[in-house]
Structures are given as C-alpha cells and as structure tokens.
C-alpha cells in the first residue's frame, strides 16, 4: 500500500524535502514581501511567480488540539493541533505532548518528526 503523502505542486515537494533536512521554510513574494503559509508556486496576492524560500518562525501559539481515531497516520494517542505563527498563519501539525498536558494559548516550538512509515513531517512541543 502506497502511503506517501499527496503532493499538490512543486512547492509541496520542496517543503517536505526541506523538512527532511530539518528546515522549516515557506515561500515569500519578492514583490509583495508577504510570506505565505502554506507555500505557493505563485503569489495569491499579485500572481507573481518570483518567490523565495524563507525560514518560518519556530515558536508559535497553540490554537486548538485534538486526536483522530481513523487515519492513515498520526492516530490516537498522537495529538494533532493548530499552531499560530505570528503574522503568518495557522500550521496544522502533530503536537509532541500527551493530550491531557496541553491547553489553548500555550507557547510551542517546532521540531522535525519522522512518522512510523518514514515520512518526514513536523511537530511542535510545549516550551519548557
């Protein structure tokens, strides 16, 4: 069974390839100077294709979190959540902490994470 994640465009291929190297980046429009999340192959504001890859902030705020019973990966007891990166947007991610120890508004920090089926992804864990 092929469980590799679906890649919707070149930007997704690049984003996940960068994650494999420990890099957490997204695209920024050189014209608008706006950083997109998720990354794009063109700027949705001006349609320009002149984009550069820039580092995303590694610290964020936990907006919400949950678990899933049926899934291809990241089933319970794994926790999934939404992390707000200030000024950029919400990142849907795995959360590296027991569900019971989390609360909305908590500060969390990025790390790379490899799933059991070998896919390079990311998770955030509460700041110590």
């Amino acid at each position, binding site marked *: 069974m092929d469980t590799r*994640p679906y890649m919707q465009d070149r930007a*997704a291929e690049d*984003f996940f390839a960068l994650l494999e190297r420990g890099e957490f980046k997204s695209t920024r429009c050189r014209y608008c100077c706006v950083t997109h999340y*998720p990354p794009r192959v063109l700027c949705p504001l001006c349609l320009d294709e002149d984009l550069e890859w820039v580092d995303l902030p590694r610290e964020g705020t936990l907006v*919400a979190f949950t678990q899933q019973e*049926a899934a291809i990966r990241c089933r319970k007891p794994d926790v999934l*959540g939404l992390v707000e990166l200030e000024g950029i947007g919400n990142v849907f991610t795995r959360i590296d902490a027991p569900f019971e120890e989390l609360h909305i508004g908590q500060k969390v920090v990025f790390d790379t994470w490899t799933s059991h089926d070998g896919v390079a992804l990311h998770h955030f864990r509460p700041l110590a």
Partner: protein
Amino acid sequence: MAGVYIAGVAMTDIGRHELDAHELGARVCAEALRDAGLIPSRVEGLISTPHGYMADTRKMITQRMADYLGIACGLMLDIDSGGNSSSTAVHIAYDRIERGRIKSCLVFAAQREATPKKIRSDIAGHFHLIKSANSLYDSYQAAFGVISPLPFYAMAIQRYMHLHGIVPEDIARVAVLLREHALRHPRAAYKEPLTVEEVLASNIVSPPIHRLESSEMHDGAAALVLVTEELARDNKRAVRVAAMAEAHDATSFIPYRGEIARFPCVGRAAHGALEGSGYSISDVDVAEVYGAFAGLEPMMYEEIGFFAPGEAPAAIREGRTSHGGEVLLNPSGGRLSLGHPAYVTPLLEFTEVVRQLRGEAGERQRPGASVGLVHTEQGFINGSVLAVLDRPDGRTSEKR
C-alpha cells in the same frame, strides 16, 4: 422576475439500503414527480450528485437517469461540491427557472456508501477509497493522515467551548434534543431515545467530540421538483422559494488564517437570502440546519443569526429551538438523528421545510409555519447555501 416554486418532494428511509443508488434515485424521482403532478416528458432540467464519498466513483449519473425516466431536457448537470452539492443543484435550478430559461427542474441525489465496517474488515481491498478520502485535503493537511474532517471540527468545537465557557453537557444535550425530534419522524435512521449520560459515556472519537455527537454516513435518496409560478398556479401544495444565496470563503477545510470557530460564509449567505426574501430572521418559523456534529449546531444557529455568539447553547437548553419554542430548528432530527447521507442531506432539509410549510409534517408540525429556512454547507463550512421558503401569497397561515 418569475417566482419559483417547489411543487414536489420525496425521500426514502434513511439508514442502510440494499438497492443500487440508481434504482433508489429512480424511485424517489418518480415519487417527487407524482407529488408535483408532473410527468417526465414535462421536465425541462435534471441535476444530480455523486453516489457517495466512500463509494466507487460513477460518472454521468444524471444522463443515465434522463434515459431511464425518458427526460429530454434543456439543462443537465452532475454536481460535486461536497455537502453543498444538492443545494447548489437547487440554486442553479432556481436561477434558471427564475430567468425563464426552463419551466421545471428535477433535482435528485441517491447515496449508497461502502460502510466503515466493511472498509475496516478489508482495509487493503478498500485502500484506494481511503487514499481518495485523504486526497480531499491539501498536502499540508493530508500528510498527517487525515481521512475525514473530524479532527478539524473537533478543534473548532474545542475553541467554541473555550471562548464561550460551554460545558460538555450543553453539547450532549443537542444530540439528545435532535433524537427527540427524530422520534417523531417515521423515516429517521434512529428510533431509540437518548440521554445526556449516554452521550457523555460514548467513546470520544476526536476530543471533545463523542461518538453520539457525531453523524454517521448513511444511505438514502431524495428528490425535489422546482417549477415556474405558472406551473404551480393550480397546485395548492406548492411552496415558494422566496430567495436563495450562497457564499464561499477562500479556504479548503482548516483555515490557515483567522478564527477557526467562526464561519463567515454562513452569515454572508444568510444575509443574502434573508435580504432577497424581504424577511428578517425573526420571521422564520422553522429551519433545517446542516450540522454534522452536535457541537456545530449551536455554532451554525449563531452564524445564521438566530442567536448572538455563545448564546445558542442556553437557548437550546431552555427549549427555545424545539416544539413550542420561538423557532423550530431541525424538526427532522437533523444530521445527527434523521441520518446523514451527505450528498442527499440538503434535499432532505428542503423536503422537511416544504412539508412544514404545507402543514403536512404530522407529529413534527410547527402549527401555522409560514416562513422556513434551509442552510447547507460544504467541506469544513468553507461554503454555504441558504434558502428562504414561504407559503405562496394569499395562502399564508392564520399566524400572520
């Protein structure tokens, strides 16, 4: 502008069906046409939706029905926009009839799902369906293995409860109330009463969502016949579509920006439909609301404008959304207890509101109901279609 009327409605039992979706669809189309007093050769438009999410894809369903029922028409369309599919179909039919392009349109949906049980017992055999469920989401959501919008809804409900201090009992009570409504519906999927204790004791499928607060995927079919004012003239049971509107946000499932516990498209569509109809929200007697989770119901009631943000749970607790309350919401039992064949659901909602406005809703009847509202959504409420229906002029109830 010409008025548009719903002249015929029909629905099957909701639950599990053995018949092929094609036959389910044909039977329900025939029943809606009989209800409208129209024969197939008078039908000028035909629109339908896919047979399910976890069903093997079948294309060009509508064309096959045109052949089967002998419908030569001026509009034929297969629509797939998730939960809004069949309400978008109604919206298009409404537009074409209002503009005078066609005089009548038959909209139908029939759903037969590969049940989760079947999938769980043979994962390898059904893996293409699981992959296809996963590919509904963009790369940044799909990569975390998501195969249903459950975790997204769970996070929105968690935030809603957090922001407004809503307790689990308030959410469980919504499921109990919808079950009470469904017990008055002979075609509902669920026939047993429910208690708050039972809901809270059921498994947590995606925290904070309990299994009994989550709608199951069901089979079923429904059909609607829309006609011009002229064709509805002698039909005392026809219900007027006073206005329709839709609005969509620039999001696909979980939004990357903004508050995830708010759904702006719903308010925009509700405003558009109410303004177009000339009614205000307080004129609405009865509404069917598309909430696939108990926690979502109060959120949708608020987004539509029935209650201020955070106030719907108290209104539900006080019985203000049930029989004898200020507005009757989801008298059918809603998605949670009528049952939820998602592609069919909007047509089930229209069917319920039409029957309420005709005064044919039996034990579920809101006495004197004369203005009704239908709300549907797609994805993670990324888009919404709203309709306001009323009794035709001169036949309004004793109420107004």
